[in-house]
């Protein structure tokens, strides 16, 4: 039976059994090696030029000094990063919940769409930094302001992608489940939401990377804690090395966050066309 199944499998999806050379490991090596090399060259140039021209530390510290700062103050940096992450996480959860609900409402009702969508676009178009002082007035100094700042930064991609996704459901599939006697709630759960999931994931991925940015800018104006506040203070103290250290930590964190979001997406969407190549290369099937 297994042999028969394998033969049928070959008929159904030829690439699964075709022994094509797997470019993965080679490209992975190249994908890590080349950026590392160019990065090393860039850092070496930076280090050399700063030392050669004796640039003062408070204007541009050499990379070695930034590394020393990170090592010396790692606990301080990480604790401030944790505070920023906490605010970003809370804001992100709020934005996702609100974005999904608003997206569903906009898709379900033309009236809601017409009444809400223009305002959402306007709200998104307002430069966030401009309204930061207002948030300070409304929500006070601290976590609350910061959180709403994150929401302001991240709600839009979630809503837009939710609406796009929900509208992309196949009308014939909807007709089919209606013919099976599905309620509107079932149509949403069984067809529209799963169809929308790839789009929703794309929206959330964008939001995930925007959230810490929102949190940091929030901390610039409305907090005495977190990486954003640390950055402002470091610049104020002319401790440029610490500022660079904060930026470096923040960037590494952003990349890790993106990786995490991609990993989550793969877990949620194992069936999606974007995952098929990996599936076929694993020689997948049964």
């Amino acid at each position, binding site marked *: 039976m297994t042999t028969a199944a394998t033969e*049928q*499998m070959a008929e*159904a999806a030829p690439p699964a059994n075709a022994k094509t050379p797997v470019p993965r490991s080679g490209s992975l090596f190249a994908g890590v090696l080349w950026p590392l090399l160019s990065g090393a060259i860039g850092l070496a140039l930076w280090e050399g030029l700063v030392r050669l021209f004796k640039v003062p530390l408070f204007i541009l510290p050499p990379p070695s000094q930034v590394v020393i700062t990170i090592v010396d103050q790692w606990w301080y940096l990480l604790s401030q990063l944790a505070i920023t992450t906490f605010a970003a996480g809370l804001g992100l959860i709020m934005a996702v919940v609100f974005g999904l609900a608003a997206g569903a409402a906009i898709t379900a009702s033309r009236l809601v769409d017409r009444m809400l969508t223009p305002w959402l676009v306007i709200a998104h178009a307002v430069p966030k930094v401009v309204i930061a002082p207002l948030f300070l007035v409304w929500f006070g100094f601290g976590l609350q302001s910061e959180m709403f700042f994150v929401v302001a930064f991240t709600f839009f991609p979630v809503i837009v992608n939710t609406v796009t996704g929900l509208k992309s459901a196949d009308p*014939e*599939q909807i*007709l089919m*489940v209606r013919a099976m*006697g599905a309620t509107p709630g*079932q149509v949403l759960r069984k067809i529209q939401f799963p169809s929308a999931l790839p789009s929703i994931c794309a929206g959330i991925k964008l939001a995930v990377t925007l959230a810490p940015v929102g949190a940091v800018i929030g901390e610039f104006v409305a907090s005495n804690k977190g990486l954003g506040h640390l950055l402002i203070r470091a610049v104020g103290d002319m401790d440029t090395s610490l500022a660079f250290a904060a930026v470096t930590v923040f960037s590494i964190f952003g990349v890790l966050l993106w990786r995490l979001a991609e990993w989550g997406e793969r877990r949620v969407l194992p*069936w999606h066309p974007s995952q098929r190549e990996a599936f076929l290369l694993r020689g997948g099937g049964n």
Partner: protein
Amino acid sequence: MHGRSASASISLKNIEKVYPGPAGDLHAIAPLSVELAAGQAVSIVGPSGCGKSTLMRLIAGLDPPTRGEIRIGQELVTRPVSDIGIVFQRDLLLEWRNVLGNVLLPAEIKGLPDLEPRARELLREFDVDAFASSYPWQLSGGMRQRVAIARALLTRPALLFLDEPFSALDALTRDQMNVLLQHVQTSEAVTTLLITHSITEAIFCADRVLVMSGRPGAIMDDIRVPFERPRRLALRETSEFTAIGRRIREHFEKAGVLVG
């Protein structure tokens, strides 16, 4: 053994369907009456746009008729009929569910528990049981459509509607599917309504062929197909079979659909 479902009769009385439009009304179906006996396998064949699919939507209760009365068994159709399995031209498998999950969809929607043994039995019958946990994209077109038929049959519906189910398949796969449908019609005791463009398929898969005219749709001929079941593909070359085919083709030639 199979726990057969009671198939149902279908009765149409003076059915008319008019779609109002800005450029005038579209008369999709002319007054049309027909009675289909329970358990009968009926094919509807007709030119494109003759209202075949509209007729099916009306019987399934997905769209109300402008005039006339539709009954399934004794019951007047006023809303979507749940005791019906529909197979469309596109298999409409949900890409995010595996094969078994797709077949079980109607049970989930109707809140029926424990139909997994039935689902697996159907997959075995249709020779796709090895793919129960595969995703639809891993299947060939013919396999996908077999899964769609299994899904339609899961809850043992009284009616099975097939709206040009095989027209996207290659000729050989299509022949296989015709044989499979034969098998289903004898094993499942379900009233089948097959809509098709293929005259051969219409005859091969049915006890009765309804020939429809172009818009507004009306029944031009009602032909009994006398062949015993199970039928083999070779039946299509017999003179009785080709005679029925000729009779249907002549209707289309007279109506100006087939001229050449």
